[in-house]
């Protein structure tokens, strides 16, 4: 917590207006978000069951510096507390240089080098910034919190191209770099160790990006009429190597993902409609006899509708579904391993309301009704046999930015 306070003090000493200009060429922005989570069963972001957990907290501070017209430097430091997964971590969210190779009347292209946010779906690049997301709890099938550390950014290079036409704008991003992973939540999603009742032993090694093949991510989007209609196709081919620890039962295996996300959004004056669909091929191999090679296909989709009662008041609702194996939607294979079947899927309905108090403060509240537990982290629910299939979640969030 002390680190957070230091971080916050440094943010708020600087300014309280939006778009703070330090000099002609330097802009500084920041945000702070605090959420409260309560659940009827299961723990989401630490001890939320029959209680209120305040352990979902994020803060960021970023710099944008343009010494030359065609050169800029971007940096964002991020603090995060998310239950027992991210425990007061402070790290570099992104840090890259942007070389704008060409500007022409109807577009531009260039190259970014460094740590770059991964362009997946409509929200991944700013998934930790409450003001930019459509809900407190993001649709987990696509913006899966358990694999967040792996999906949020890569170290490498990105080519970008933006082209304007009278009808709409094309936007292409091609990223090649090393995926990052800094916790074992993803590992326990891959090797489904649920509890001591599970026939698999608990994996003790690490999924490491070092030594893994670099990932390839690309996104093509088309925006009509300044973003009234948005269409996007994202693709990611990523890999992580498993490094066993000591003489454990699992061997040096590898995990590889091919992810496709289709996104569409309508942004009207009062109504916003969003739909996203994910199809993901997973290849887990060489983990040894205990966990034979498997290639499950996971999938997810959601539709969300938001209605602006006033320009600063919004009500929204969503239905979403996610399956870790499309050929085993009711989780019978998971059950064979000694885990609860409902660990393999989640179907949920959500209703929420958002109030933008002013341009730099926002408050929102949500109710989720969930069937399935695939959202849950092992860190907050170490014994899956104690989890319940049907559960409700209430969330309240306050966010401030400059």
């Amino acid at each position, binding site marked *: 917590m002390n680190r957070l306070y230091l971080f916050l003090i440094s943010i708020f000493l600087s300014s309280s*207006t*939006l*778009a703070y*200009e330090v000099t002609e060429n330097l802009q500084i*922005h920041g*945000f702070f978000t605090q959420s409260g989570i309560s659940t009827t069963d299961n723990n989401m972001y630490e001890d939320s069951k029959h209680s209120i957990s305040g352990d979902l907290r994020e803060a*960021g501070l970023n710099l*944008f510096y*343009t010494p030359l*017209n*065609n050169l800029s430097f971007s*940096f*964002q430091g991020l603090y995060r507390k998310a239950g027992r997964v991210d425990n007061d971590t402070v790290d570099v969210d*992104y840090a*890259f240089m942007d070389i*704008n190779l060409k*500007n022409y*009347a*109807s577009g*531009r292209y260039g190259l970014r080098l460094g740590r*770059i*946010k991964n362009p997946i779906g409509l929200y991944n*690049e*700013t998934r930790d*910034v409450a*003001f*930019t997301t459509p809900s407190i709890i993001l649709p987990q099938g696509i913006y899966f919190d358990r694999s967040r550390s792996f999906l949020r950014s890569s170290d490498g290079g990105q080519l*970008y191209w*933006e082209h*304007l036409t*009278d009808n709409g*704008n094309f936007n292409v991003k091609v990223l090649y770099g090393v995926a990052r992973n800094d916790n074992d939540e993803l590992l326990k999603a891959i090797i489904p160790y649920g509890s001591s009742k599970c026939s698999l032993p608990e994996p003790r090694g690490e999924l490491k990006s070092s030594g893994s093949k670099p990932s390839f991510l690309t996104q093509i989007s088309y925006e009509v*009429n*300044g*973003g*009234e209609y948005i269409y996007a196709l994202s693709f990611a081919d990523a890999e992580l190597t498993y490094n066993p620890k000591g003489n454990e039962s699992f061997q040096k295996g590898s995990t590889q993902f091919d992810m496709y996300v289709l996104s569409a959004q309508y*942004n009207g*004056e009062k109504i916003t409609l969003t739909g996203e669909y994910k199809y993901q091929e997973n290849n887990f191999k060489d983990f040894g006899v205990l966990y034979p090679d498997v290639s499950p296909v996971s999938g997810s989709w959601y539709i969300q*509708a938001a*209605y*602006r*009662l*006033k*320009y*600063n008041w919004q*009500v929204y*609702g*969503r*239905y979403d579904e996610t399956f870790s194996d499309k050929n085993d939607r009711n989780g019978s294979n998971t059950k064979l391993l000694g885990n609860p079947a409902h660990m393999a899927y989640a*179907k*949920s*309905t959500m*209703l929420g309301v958002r109030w933008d108090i*002013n*341009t730099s403060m926002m408050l929102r509240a949500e109710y989720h*009704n*969930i*069937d399935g537990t695939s959202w849950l982290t092992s860190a907050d629910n170490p014994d899956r046999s104690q989890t319940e299939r*049907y559960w*409700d979640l209430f969330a309240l969030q306050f966010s401030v930015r400059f």
Partner: protein
Amino acid sequence: MRITAGKYFQRQILLLLFLLLIPVLSYSSDSLTSSDSIDSSDSINKSAEKHNIDDIDIYVNSSVPDQQYSLAEVRAIFAMRKIIWPDGTKIKVFVLPDDASEHRLFTKSRLHMFPHQFRRIWDRLTFSGAGQAPIEVESYEEMFERLSNAPGSIGYLKAQRYHGNIRKLNYE
């Protein structure tokens, strides 16, 4: 009150109800939004609406290359996606705050976009490191000051003749 889980179809019913609610809300939205400053000024004087819209125009610092720009280019400039003028100088964008009625009137009447669309674009640029947000000014007076003094700058003002280092932008 806890909505009984276990009855899977109940959630679909909830969602359906919500979706059905949208047209109802749209229908009654005239009264709900009447406290918006744009709408209230409309209801006070309906005939003044067109006049008000014509009252806002895009102005640039005199240093900006004098040529005709397309609406797509002007939108891209305010969206902070086009950042350099044809002569290679940097574009500097000034806007009023999101909740200022002049800003909402400007984006709707001149660029045919809504303030929330711009906010989405600016926030994505700002918080992914891909770009920056425009510079906010508090009033037309400040806008005029900044436009007059900053080379390569663009913004919007009440349409009238100004004495100073600015001119109306030629676009269609």
